[in-house]
């Protein structure tokens, strides 16, 4: 088992774990932060998959801007009280 494969395995696991945490975290703020981290991990994965173009787009648009949008929206949520009313 070579190092590259191990790295891929770890990265894939990390991505799934981050995705899972981002969706199940109790606090919405933490969920969004986890989502941004998830986006950065995705960027790494794109690089591993020889998709530099996608990696750049992911980091700039997906992780960056989507994260910013979510955080901006979260600011609104916060002021209005909690939004973590998951059953």
């Amino acid at each position, binding site marked *: 088992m070579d190092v590259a494969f191990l790295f891929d395995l770890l990265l894939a696991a990390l991505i799934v774990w981050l995705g899972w945490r981002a969706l199940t975290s109790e606090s919405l703020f933490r969920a969004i932060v986890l989502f941004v981290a998830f986006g950065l991990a995705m960027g790494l994965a794109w690089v591993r998959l020889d998709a530099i173009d996608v990696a750049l787009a992911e980091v*700039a648009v997906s992780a*960056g801007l989507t994260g910013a949008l979510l955080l901006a929206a979260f600011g609104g949520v916060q002021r*209005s009280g909690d939004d973590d009313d998951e059953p």
Partner: protein
Amino acid sequence: MTNPERDTLARLARFGSTLAVALVFAGLAFAMLSLPAEPTGLAAAVRAELPGTGAANPVTAVLLNFRGYDTLLEIAVLLLALLAIWTMRRGQLRPQRDPGDVLESLASIQAPVMLVVAGYLLWAGGSAPGGAFQAGGILAAAGVMLVLAGSGWPQRLSGWPLRVALVLGLSAFICVGVAVVLGGQEFLAYPASGAATIILVLEICATVSIAVILLDMFLSVLRGRASRTDTTASIDQP
């Protein structure tokens, strides 16, 4: 509905959805693993035709030449989403409250750097990884930083200049496409000699539009935050 009942129902829903999703996962994983190992796809065809496209980077060639029509529609999607957001936009944009010195100084250094990076990505997109979307995304991110740092000038872009910047990308695509149709070629078929130039022009225009649209989306969300008046609501409506 009483509370215990509701809890039971919720638990049931969670259990059911977990089960269903597990089944979906099993099916999809099985399908995926059974895919043939030999590569399929258009990689070879793209490589073969690459010289005539005016772009050395195959991804750019696909995005702006082979499947340029998808990109045209995609920019339309962006613009449309922004128009939709505008119809819902209420309230005024308030200046950001005390951004903090760190953020401010960080932004003042970072923004120019990002501008340069964006310019590089745009320019290099023809041959190396990069292109309109990446450049546009980074430009927009730079704008977001500036806004967060309290700088007012991203908001100053308004009125006609803003509108022109928004439609620039889509109009450029349409103009190029229509021009070649009127010249007797198929829509979006660039003449081989001028393809590189055309792609560069399209990329520049698209970058401007994408950056401005993304930034304006962000500003609109900030605005929406300011206009909110009441407590949370749920999407579960009859």
